[in-house]
């Protein structure tokens, strides 16, 4: 066991993948010599060779396209998109090509890509360094979409994603890279060192894609969330002293609906939390599915606490970011207190 922040955990996952499988390689903007703008690939080029970890032109569509070609050629490419906000030029290759290749070819061809991208706000990044596009990817059949909330999961899930023969969109909540974050920007930064989830095995292990985790058991209500908001929701419940069960989905597609249903049947009250804009966000899908499965157990409307339906504004990011207070308010509404 070692102590790692999320960056180190991701780095360790890729290091292991490169070591174990010569068909694995990493490409993306600035990932090579420099090791990535967030340093997730630091040292990997030096260790594994120029041709295994290399810089690409600034061309997200091109990066994904050539990675698909490599995948078809039998390789297992890991792609880094510098910010999730910059994934849109690659959407055609992801949606029209990567996601449907196995299907349209009757199973003859596929490309086992892992497409990593830092997402989420709270870093003064404004509208172009803060987005959470999971709502779009979860609508695209053929893609898996996952998002870890701590270093242990990040490493185990990234190894799973790389070893998976389906394409995986791997979202990394950048606000959590260096430490957990409870939503209060005025508190001093906390590092992963002090968290048990910062304890990360140095060797190979996997965390399966498709299993949610109950990060805080509770009986009064269920909070369904993922990424940065896991920590905010947990802190909110603790500070407000509400016996809420907090579920970290980890994987959005495939979705661990059984864990959700089991919890909601116990609590009867649900708050869904995410940072992405509200309308047609993944929270809508969660709300829809939960009421489909648990209608007769619900004691109050399912609440959604999300980013507003505006771009992420630089100067008002803490008014945009779903706060502990908004989560507590929603919990109270659902509890009728």
């Amino acid at each position, binding site marked *: 066991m070692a102590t790692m922040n999320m960056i180190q955990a991701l780095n360790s996952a890729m290091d292991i993948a490169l070591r174990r499988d010569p068909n694995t*390689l990493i490409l993306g903007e600035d990932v090579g010599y420099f090791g990535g703008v967030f340093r997730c690939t630091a040292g990997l080029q030096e260790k594994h060779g120029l*041709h295994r970890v290399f810089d*690409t*032109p600034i*061309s997200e*569509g*091109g990066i994904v*396209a*050539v*990675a*698909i*070609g*490599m*995948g*078809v*050629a*039998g*390789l297992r490419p890991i792609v880094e998109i510098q910010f999730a906000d910059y994934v849109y*030029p690659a959407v*055609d*290759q992801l949606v*029209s*090509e990567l996601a449907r*290749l*196995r*299907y*349209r*070819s*009757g*199973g*003859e*061809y*596929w490309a086992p890509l892992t497409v990593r991208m830092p997402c989420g706000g709270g870093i003064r990044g404004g509208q172009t360094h803060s987005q959470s596009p999971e709502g779009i990817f979860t609508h695209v*059949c*053929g893609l*898996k979409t996952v998002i870890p909330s701590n270093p242990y999961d990040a490493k185990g899930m990234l190894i799973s994603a790389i070893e998976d*023969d*389906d394409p995986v969109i791997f979202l990394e909540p950048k606000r959590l890279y260096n430490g957990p974050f409870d939503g209060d920007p005025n508190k001093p930064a906390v590092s992963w060192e002090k968290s048990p989830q910062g304890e990360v095995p140095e060797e190979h292990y996997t965390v399966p894609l*498709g299993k949610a985790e109950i990060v805080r058991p509770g009986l009064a209500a269920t909070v369904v969330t993922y990424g940065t908001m896991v920590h905010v929701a947990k802190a909110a419940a603790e500070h407000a002293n509400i016996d809420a069960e907090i579920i970290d989905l980890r994987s959005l*597609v*495939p*979705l661990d*609906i059984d864990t959700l249903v089991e919890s909601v049947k116990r609590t009867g009250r649900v708050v869904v939390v995410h940072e992405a804009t509200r309308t047609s966000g993944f929270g809508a899908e969660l709300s829809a599915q939960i009421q489909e499965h648990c209608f007769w157990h619900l004691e109050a409307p399912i609440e959604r606490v999300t980013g507003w339906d505006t771009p992420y504004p630089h100067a008002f990011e803490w008014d945009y970011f779903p706060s502990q207070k908004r989560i507590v308010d929603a919990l109270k509404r659902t509890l009728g207190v």
Partner: protein
Amino acid sequence: METVPEQTRLHIPIPSSRPGEQPDFSDIEVPNAGSAERPDEGVDPREIPELASTLIRVLNKKHEAVGPWAMDIPVDTLRRGLRYMLTVRVYDDRMFQLQRQGKLSFYMKSTGEEAVSVAAALALRSGDMFFPSYRQQGLLIARDRSLVDMMSHCLSNSRDSAKGRQMPVMYTWKEGNFFSISGNLGTQLPQAVGWAMGAAYKNQDHVAAGWVGDGTTAEGDFHYALTFASVYQAPVIMNVVNNQWAISSYQGVAGGEHATFAERGLGYGLPALRVDGNDFLAVYAATQWAAKRARQLDGPTLIEHFTYRVEAHSSSDDPSQYRPLSEASEWPLGDPIERLKNHLINLGEWSEEQHQELYQETVEKIRAAYAEAESYGTLTDGPRLSRSTMFEDVYKEPLPHLQRQRAQMLED
């Protein structure tokens, strides 16, 4: 109500002729066969910009192979080329007819462009990988894919290797190193570059070849392909099939008024060859040149095949709405099958009678193949795959929600 400016300073490209007008190809310069130089395959691209502007042509008016691009191609290869091209033509005619009879939902012919794919296929090796667009059925035929399988695909029947999921002509054939056709224009060209990078990464000497139309060059994917091919010097051949039209838009709308499509490559430091796409020998020679260059690690090549789309864009299209119908017959570069036939006759290796015989044989072969294909079902009749297969291959293993959806559908 404001008035519309009568004057505009905006330039809108218009083709040389429209329905009801005389076709006009006077702006097309056709250099003499044999006039283009043939550099060594290792040449510095900066030394050969003129090959992107001229036309590499081998067959002259007397049906002889002339000039430095006239390679020593075995007569047997030429005869195979002729046979394959004829097969493509007859296959296209028959399938189009069947579409008109309601057996197929859709079809796209490659009439007039058969040399582009057949000659390329013969100039490459079986380990080389094809990333075609929808108008290179010749690649399949030249690699001897079963006609029954091709037809079964177009019929979406019980033997369709795409399991009924794709429209006709969007073939896939892994065994033959023929990539699954996308339907989205252009996307496969940078994928071809990636495949070639993969081959290089693995230290293999395979080459990838991709094809896009003139219209498709305007997509971002074309730029991605050229950029990545140049940066990583990938062993790839990028083919632009300039058949003058993109549905109803002539090639000027794609930028052809101001430069050739081969010339696009120059700005990326790529060698670029502009080839008479209706000249089997020229396409073969250019492809071979590019393949050798790629295999010896001298990098990618861009080839523009100058040709003409003789028929409608697809079975859904009616070209009489936007171009003079007689354009095809006035196309200055002739017909690729006729030209290769005449060359072989000129060599004393073929005759009109043999040709007629081959044609009859081919018609028969296609008819027989179709009879068999139909026995595996059509889109509307006969055997078909189980509809529950539609939930397979979305992922490697069906995810739980897809299993639930499948069960729900089957309940219906």
